[in-house]
């Protein structure tokens, strides 16, 4: 037997790891590189560098309006999802009641239902209700698809808490509402906020379901990008994508500061 330390990665493992890292990062790096090309077509490698395709974004008003629509949609649906998910998370974490498991499964179900199926269901529903093209309707269905993220992170925050401070406040005469507002809420706020950010990102990125219900007036940025990519090769898509990658990295940094990115992504406390 060799005396090699088995708690370390061998050279083969490190080569595998390096190749996999390249596989993971390659498409993102390539998008960022191609966005700096001065050519009319998407190509790698390229010779001339320019910021031309960033200036071209300004000449595509539909992309800019889609961007703002996605921002407002994300803000509204993440906020609505948080407002309904936080009390539900408190109920599920703090109470034993008949139907608790069923309620939990129902509220987490948007993760299990394929987004194409959700898209079809909402398309049918909107056409019956004559809600097609309504921004409010889009906010409502986006909120449903992101509730599980808010619920999961809030649950993790509530379950991880000691109840001593709350019990003390109650026994000293604080009402349930005051105990919630002054004691519990500040304690779970990082989890709730992280849930909101994750919900915002998921709403902002959602494309599959939204394609089914988006109209020319309610086209989100991912849908607008998808439409451009599937119709023509247009380098503007790479400059917009680069901005999205950099923006997401900024959000990841914020999430990491708030609760730790591993916790958000893996869902462990």
């Amino acid at each position: 037997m060799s005396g090699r330390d088995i708690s370390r990665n061998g050279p083969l493992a490190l080569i595998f790891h390096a190749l996999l890292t390249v596989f993971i990062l390659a498409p993102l790096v390539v998008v960022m590189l191609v966005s700096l090309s001065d050519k009319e077509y998407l190509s790698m490698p390229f010779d001339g560098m320019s910021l031309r395709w960033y200036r071209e974004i300004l000449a595509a008003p539909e992309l800019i309006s889609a961007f703002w629509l996605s921002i407002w949609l994300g803000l509204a649906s993440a906020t609505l999802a948080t407002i309904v998910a936080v009390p539900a998370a408190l109920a599920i974490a703090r109470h034993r009641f008949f139907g608790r498991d069923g309620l939990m499964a129902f509220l987490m179900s948007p993760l299990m239902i394929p987004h194409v199926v959700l898209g079809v269901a909402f398309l049918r529903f909107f056409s019956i209700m004559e809600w097609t093209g309504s921004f409010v309707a889009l906010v409502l269905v986006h909120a449903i698809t992101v509730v599980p993220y808010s619920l999961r992170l809030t649950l993790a925050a509530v379950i991880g808490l000691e109840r001593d401070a709350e019990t003390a406040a109650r026994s000293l005469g604080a009402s349930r509402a005051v105990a919630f507002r002054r004691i519990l809420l500040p304690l779970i706020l990082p989890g709730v906020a992280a849930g909101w950010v994750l919900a915002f990102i998921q709403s902002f990125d959602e494309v599959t379901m939204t394609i089914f219900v988006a109209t020319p007036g309610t086209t989100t940025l991912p849908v607008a990008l998808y439409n451009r990519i599937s119709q023509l090769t247009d380098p503007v898509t790479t400059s917009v994508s680069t901005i999205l990658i950099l923006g997401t990295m900024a959000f990841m940094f914020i999430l990491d500061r708030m609760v730790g990115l591993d916790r958000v992504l893996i869902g462990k406390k």
Partner: protein
Amino acid sequence: MASSTHQTSRGLPWLLSLPALALFLALLAIPLVLTAILSFNAFDGMRGIQQSYGFGNYLEILLDGYYREIFLRTGGMALAVTLICIVLGVPETLILAKMKPVWRGTFFVVILGPLLISVVVRTLGWSVLLGSQGVVNTVLRGLGLVDEPIRLLFSMTGVIIVLTHVFLPFMVIAVWSAMQRLDGQIEHAARSLGAGPFTTFRRIMLPQLMPGILSGAIIVFALAASAYATPAIIGGRRVKVVATTLYDEFFNSLNWPLGAAIAVLLLLANILIIVGCNRLVERRFKQVFA
């Protein structure tokens, strides 16, 4: 946790859950039920949706070779993506576990971070990489591995590569979660008793990681089988899968009842696989969880 729960005020938990429940009943349950009803409506190419009901749409999907092939192709694609995610994801998670905490944190972000970046953006990157003049073909020809550019864009191979990239993080997350329940010393014990690295992996590590691998496989399979944007962009018209067929029925053929029936079948298949496999995992690996 049970000791810290309220036993008083029975109505309170439902009152707290009411806003979420109302939203979900009105805007999730009702649309799904309406879609299920629509799937039984008859359809006439000239006059549109008919007010008569039957199993016609389901029979058409099950008996018509065209739709059966699409379902089989989608299942095969999802299976291939799942297997590749296992082959890449399990070793990578083992490697991550052995890293120093600083490096592990960094590479967690590298490997899991792309989950937060729009799938359209990730797919766009791959469409640049996979084109006949793209980076992958340039590198392959530079190395002399191929003479002619190989068709990756608008091919099933391309779709499988990109879906693997999109869903690999879920496998890493699932295996990592399973690994947190393991006793780290057991590997050392096996090795010090004379087992080689391969035997240790196969006899000691793998059986304990199996629940994590299987739950990761369920997630990856379900997501891959219903993916839309990636097959639509990378596969194009050449590689039709269930999700893109669904879109075509609704927006090109305008046969909504048939589209609804495809959606119902996709949802049922999804639920059957998720619930069925979870049962299997729980039953077979009870001793590991206990």
